[in-house]
């Protein structure tokens, strides 16, 4: 399953600075990372720690101020829009808010057909396309027959998020970045979403990068965890090492702030 030898996405000294002069903000501060093929990685941090900025740089949505990002060992080149599209065939994302991820004027079929076109299936006959879409929907336990000809706003939040995963199933990218995929969904549907994402990893061997503030979630899903504070990685390693034996005071505080059920939750340390 997971091939830990093959480097998938890595970076050295990746930095992002917003603004100039007095308003200069260092959002991501010289971070180094190495994500392997088939690995599930979590980047954990509080609001404002720079985790989403890092995700956007990985996706190539914003430029990198300093440092280099390497994709499959080679320097990433997204200088032209053709190259960028080529890169996006390999890296995809799921965002926090499923309600704003869809174009309200497009039917659900369009969302899925776009994906088929993107991976080069634009010329397939119609029934072949329907077959592909049905397969993708059934992967996330949705029925394509019930969804076809509907608009995104006719679905619930959980269904929308599952459809997002169906999209990823069609595209089969090398890397998937999930930016707080469950924070807008209630605790009961959360397990379903996580299960599908992990199943996707098991079937396609993609690298999954979770961006989250929920350290419990990070512990549940990931192979390795990076803890981010003020734009820097303060601690990283395997999930068990980081969560059960944290070395840095920041990590310890983050873990102690989460309500638990087997240990006492110490409120005096606020």
């Amino acid at each position, binding site marked *: 399953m997971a091939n830990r030898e093959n480097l998938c996405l890595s970076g050295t000294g990746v930095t992002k600075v917003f603004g100039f002069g007095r308003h200069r903000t260092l959002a991501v501060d010289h971070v180094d990372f190495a994500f392997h093929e088939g690995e599930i990685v979590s980047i954990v941090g*509080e*609001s404002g720690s720079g985790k989403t900025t890092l995700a956007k740089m990985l996706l190539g949505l914003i430029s990198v101020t300093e440092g280099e990002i390497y994709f499959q060992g080679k320097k990433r080149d997204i200088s032209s829009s053709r190259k960028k599209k080529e890169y996006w065939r390999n890296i995809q994302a799921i965002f926090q808010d499923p309600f704003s991820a869809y174009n309200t004027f497009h039917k659900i079929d369009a969302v899925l057909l776009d994906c088929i076109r993107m991976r080069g299936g634009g010329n397939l006959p119609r029934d072949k396309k329907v077959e592909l879409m049905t397969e993708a929907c059934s992967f996330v336990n949705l029925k394509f027959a019930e969804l076809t000809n509907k608009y995104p706003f006719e679905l*619930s*939040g959980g269904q929308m998020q599952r459809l997002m995963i169906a999209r990823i199933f069609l595209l089969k990218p090398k890397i998937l970045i999930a930016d707080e995929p469950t924070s807008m969904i*209630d*605790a*009961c*549907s*959360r*397990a*379903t979403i*996580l*299960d599908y994402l992990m199943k996707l990893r098991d079937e396609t061997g993609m690298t999954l990068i979770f961006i989250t*503030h*929920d*350290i*419990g*979630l*990070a*512990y*549940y899903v990931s192979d390795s965890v990076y803890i981010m504070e003020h734009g820097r990685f303060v601690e990283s390693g395997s*999930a*068990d090492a980081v*969560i*059960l034996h944290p070395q840095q005071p920041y990590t310890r*505080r*983050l*873990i102690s*702030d*989460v*309500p*638990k*059920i*087997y*240990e006492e*939750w110490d*409120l005096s340390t*606020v």
Partner: protein
Amino acid sequence: MARVMLEVRDLTTKYVTRYKEDVYAVDHVSLKIEEGKTLGIAGESGCGKSTLALSLMGYYFPPLHYTSGEIIIDGQNITGMKPDDVRKSILGREIAYIPQAAMNALNPTRKVIDFIGDVVRAHDPTWTKKMIYDHARASFEMLGLPAEVLQKYPVELSGGMKQRTVIAVAVILSPKVLIADEPSSALDVTSQKMVIKMLRDMMESGFIKAMIFITHELPLLYNVADEIMVMYAGQIVEHASAKQAVFDPLHPYSKGLMGSIIVPESGLRDVKLVAIPGVPPNLKNPPAGCRFAERCKYVQAECKVTSVPLYEVGYNRSYRCILSETQLRRAYEHGE
């Protein structure tokens, strides 16, 4: 026997849609909270938790309508009071409510102190500016918030601070019962902890006498509440102490909920989270039998036809299922 701060008997409230359909979002709910206790209400989105919170205050406005039942706050029966009277003399003084997106309630164009002035004068127009300021300052200090906040605009405050400010404003007239509806779900873990500590301190110092805490985050609820009620499709399906509800749930739905807990503790990675399949029923025409029957693993033939009452088992413990305690426990042992 401790003083009962809030008692609700058989409360039923409904929404009337614009096609004149009735949706019973709170269906024969009874509860009782003693002085110094926190009652937690758990359940998934859309199960009626927030509607229950609104209904408990006795303040109804369309589309929410009162159908039947009684609400008694510290010995005072407020059933059937006019909405205007409820707003003036009950809300804020006897019972206060912190809504889900509470921090958006602050007026962005006014300082916090002016906002407090509005709140206080809505109840008693005779208060002077000086009185309001002194009172606000005293209660902010008691709640551990810096008094400088009073002179600030909401944009100058962080999310966590805004949330704590709104809580402080909600309790400025020292209500007896506080209803907190997901007060920390929009905050990160550190701010969440500060909010919870503030609520806990308010309870301990007797600033408020009892609290109802609503959330879908079970680990949080376990740490805050003394007792937990699990709600499903407008009905209470289980009522137990926090410990029993989390470690020894009886109702299959509560059992399913507890199976979705994620906490950063050793052992979590070995268990597989099991989600409850399916979706809750549409309350416009709820099923005749048990409302959970469609999604239940242990469903029997009669579940779908006969409605199930809430069975009392022991002190402060009840559940809504036709299977007996022993049958359920045995099923869970075999199921895992």
